[in-house]
Structure formats: structure tokens, C-alpha cells
């Protein structure tokens, strides 16, 4: 199956750490509204969809929660209500860090979703947030490594046309990612744009953010090899917010909307 550039562009959202369940997740609507708003009447045939994996995480967490169960079950309702969502978030990260069977299930589910769109022939653009950027990065690199996709000079063989990451912890040593798979020799270029806010603690790992200029997050993933085939760019955004509000502010940032419209149209 080959991608048909004339078909509707698909923007697939991969969420990050979440509380709640899959039913509670609607960031695909946020991105759809953001792009439409920033188009200001310009025509662009696109749709958004979402890869939801919070239920997979929650099912895996049950086993982990049993370890903590004796302790947390003894909490009163008040602190328990605060602690439980926090525990949900922490355990999401633990699952990703562990890279065990649950993380592999999540990753494979994302790959299956991507290949479903590919088989339908729609050009696909992947937009991932927070922890979801880890799975998105891994899924694309796994597909490149498989060698049956991503012939460098034929974008019709690319299951993903470009990657956008937002609020990504990929720069943190704890996630142990530092490279991308080479596409081989050729002229076409795979674009990866990574948005980050200086006041986003998930990006820097620092409660106080990272004010220094020249902070290199994922641009360092690309080597100097001419066979790489990746264009990787870190783009800082002024969120106007701090801390966790900065971490969730990407979904309606106008500059990101403008860039997404341009990317999906190319």
C-alpha cells in the first residue's frame, strides 16, 4: 500500500501522562480546533484522531497498585483523592521507564494504528505530548528499522510524514534515548519539530525550568551522517504560563497551530 498525497491528511495525537480513562481524552479535538482556528479560512483537508492507551496503563497499574495497596487503602478519603491521581501519573511514567511488556503493548498498539492509516493511503502526521513522545519516537524508529517502509526518496512509502513533539522528556537521561534511525542515502527529509517551554518542568527535569539559551533537547539525536535523512529542530515557545500549566499549554498555542497547518500542508 502506498500513501496518496491527494487523500485527506490525518493528524494522529499521542497523549502523555494522564489521569482518568481513555474516555476522558479529547486532545484530538483540541488540535483540530487549534489548526482550524489558525487557518483563518484557508482550505486544508485534514482530520485528527487519537491513540489512546490510558486504559492499557491503568490495567497494568492494578498490579503495581497492589504493592502499594496496603498503604493507600488506609488513607482517608481526602488525601486518598489527591494521592490517587498523582499515583496514576507516576505509575504511567514507571511503566514507560521500565520498558517492559506494557510499554511494548502500548508501542505496538501505536504502530498498528499508524499502519492502519498507512494501509488506507492517508498521509499521516504524528503529534505527541509528554510521555507520548517516547512512544512516538520509538514507534517511528522501529518502523524505519523494519526496512519495508520509509524508502528515503519515496514519501509514499512513509507511514508517518513528520513528527511533532510537545513538552517532551526525551532530553532527560532517565529515558535513555539519544538517537534516530538513519533513512539511508537520498534527498527527501523526514521532519521532526520539538516544541518546548522554558517553564515546563517535564522538559528540563527542573522544578524551576531551564532559562539558559541554546538548550539542546532532541537536535542532538541527529548525527552528522549524510545518510541520516532527518531534519530535527527544537523550537521554544513562550507559553505565558509556568510549571504544569506550561506543560499542558501546548494544545492551544497559536504558534504551534500555525506551524502544524504549514507542516500538514507540506
Amino acid at each position: 500500500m502506498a500513501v496518496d498525497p491527494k487523500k485527506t491528511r490525518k493528524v494522529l495525537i499521542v497523549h502523555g501522562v494522564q489521569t482518568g480513562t481513555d474516555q476522558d481524552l479529547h486532545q484530538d479535538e483540541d488540535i483540530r480546533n487549534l489548526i482550524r482556528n489558525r487557518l483563518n479560512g484557508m482550505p486544508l483537508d485534514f482530520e485528527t484522531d487519537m491513540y489512546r492507551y490510558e486504559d492499557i496503563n491503568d490495567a497494568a497499574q492494578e498490579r503495581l497498585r497492589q504493592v502499594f495497596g496496603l498503604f493507600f487503602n488506609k488513607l482517608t478519603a481526602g488525601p486518598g483523592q489527591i494521592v490517587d491521581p498523582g499515583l496514576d501519573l507516576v505509575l504511567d511514567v514507571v511503566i514507560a521507564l521500565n520498558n517492559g511488556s506494557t510499554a511494548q503493548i502500548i508501542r505496538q498498539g501505536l504502530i498498528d494504528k499508524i499502519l492502519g492509516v498507512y494501509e488506507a493511503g492517508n498521509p499521516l502526521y504524528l503529534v505527541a505530548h509528554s510521555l507520548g513522545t517516547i512512544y512516538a519516537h520509538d514507534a517511528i524508529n522501529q518502523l524505519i528499522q523494519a526496512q519495508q517502509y520509509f524508502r528515503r526518496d519515496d514519501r509514499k512509502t512513509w507511514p508517518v510524514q513528520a513528527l511533532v513533539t510537545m513538552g517532551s522528556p526525551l532530553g532527560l537521561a532517565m529515558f535513555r534515548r539519544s538517537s534516530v534511525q538513519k533513512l539511508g542515502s537520498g534527498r527527501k527529509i523526514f521532519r521532526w519539530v520539538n516544541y518546548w517551554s522554558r517553564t515546563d518542568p517535564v522538559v528540563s527535569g527542573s522544578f524551576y525550568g531551564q532559562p539558559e539559551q541554546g538548550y539542546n533537547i532532541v537536535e542532538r539525536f541527529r548525527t552528522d551522517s549524510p545518510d541520516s535523512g532527518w531534519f530535527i529542530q527544537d523550537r521554544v515557545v513562550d507559553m505565558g504560563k509556568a510549571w504544569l500549566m506550561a506543560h499542558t499549554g501546548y494544545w492551544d498555542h497559536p504558534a504551534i497551530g500555525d506551524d502544524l497547518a504549514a507542516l500538514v500542508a507540506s
Partner: protein
Amino acid sequence: MRRRISLIVLVLFLAGCSHYVYTGTITEKDAAGRDHKLLLYWNTTERALWFDEYAGGVRILPECSLTTLVFEEKENRIVWEVPAPGAPRDKAVCGAINNAGRIKDLDEGPLSLTIYCKPAVDDEFAVGREFSLEPRNEPYVFPIGKQKVKDIETGTPKRPECREARR
């Protein structure tokens, strides 16, 4: 506990901020001789203390095209980087802002930028009309105004409405 709460309140107070959007518009012709308005904008957040460092790129949005030119800070320059097959790291600098090396040092008034090259376009996948400023020795000059806004989401202007669509 009281010290901890006081610290949290103090930090929240210091994090109080003002949002500003800088904008400027010029009109240029494309290769077919059609006029395109071009909107240039960036936003800043000023905080009483803590981060006085700017964050955010300068963008140019042309009329009747979905192209976006993004100027980012790189090594004390504000540049427009584009994919460039065969160039080091498949990247080339096709433009630069001349007024300053840091976006936080840009201000109201004339903003001068120079365009050196145009990015390659993948015609097979491109939707709509590509538009880019023509490379030339003479800089483009945008008259920049500054406006305080309530928030970035609603205060940032959109790309100029395509006048051709209205005919």
C-alpha cells in the same frame, strides 16, 4: 508547614506576568506578480522576577498560502532554518533577522531581515500555494508595533485573510 505555604505564595506572586504581542505587516509580490500581505509576529511574557528570558520564535505568515517562516535563536543569531538535502545535518539557514541576536532584544520599530535562499518544495505533497520571500541583498523591513494582550491564545493575530478567496 507555614514556611512552605509562604514560599509557595511568594513564588506564585513573583510569577505574575504581562503578555505582549509584536506584529508588523508588509506586502510583497510572488513570482506571478500577485500581492501577498505578510504578517510577522512574536509574543513575549514579562515577569516581575524569575524568567526575564524571552521564549518563542518570530513567525511570518503569508496571505493565501499555508507557508510559515519560523525564525529561531541559534548561536546568538535569529535565523530561519529550512530542510536542505545534502547540507550539513540537512539544514540550511535561509534568512536572518538583522536587528539583534536574541528575540528578547527585539522591540517596536523597523525590523530588518535578510533572505538568503528558499527552501525546496515537495510538489507532490504540497497543498495550496507555496510562498516565500525572494532572496535578495536588500533587507525586508517590517514596521513593528507592540500590544499588551490578555493572553497569548486569543491575543495572537492570525494569518492575513486571503483576498483572492473573496473575489
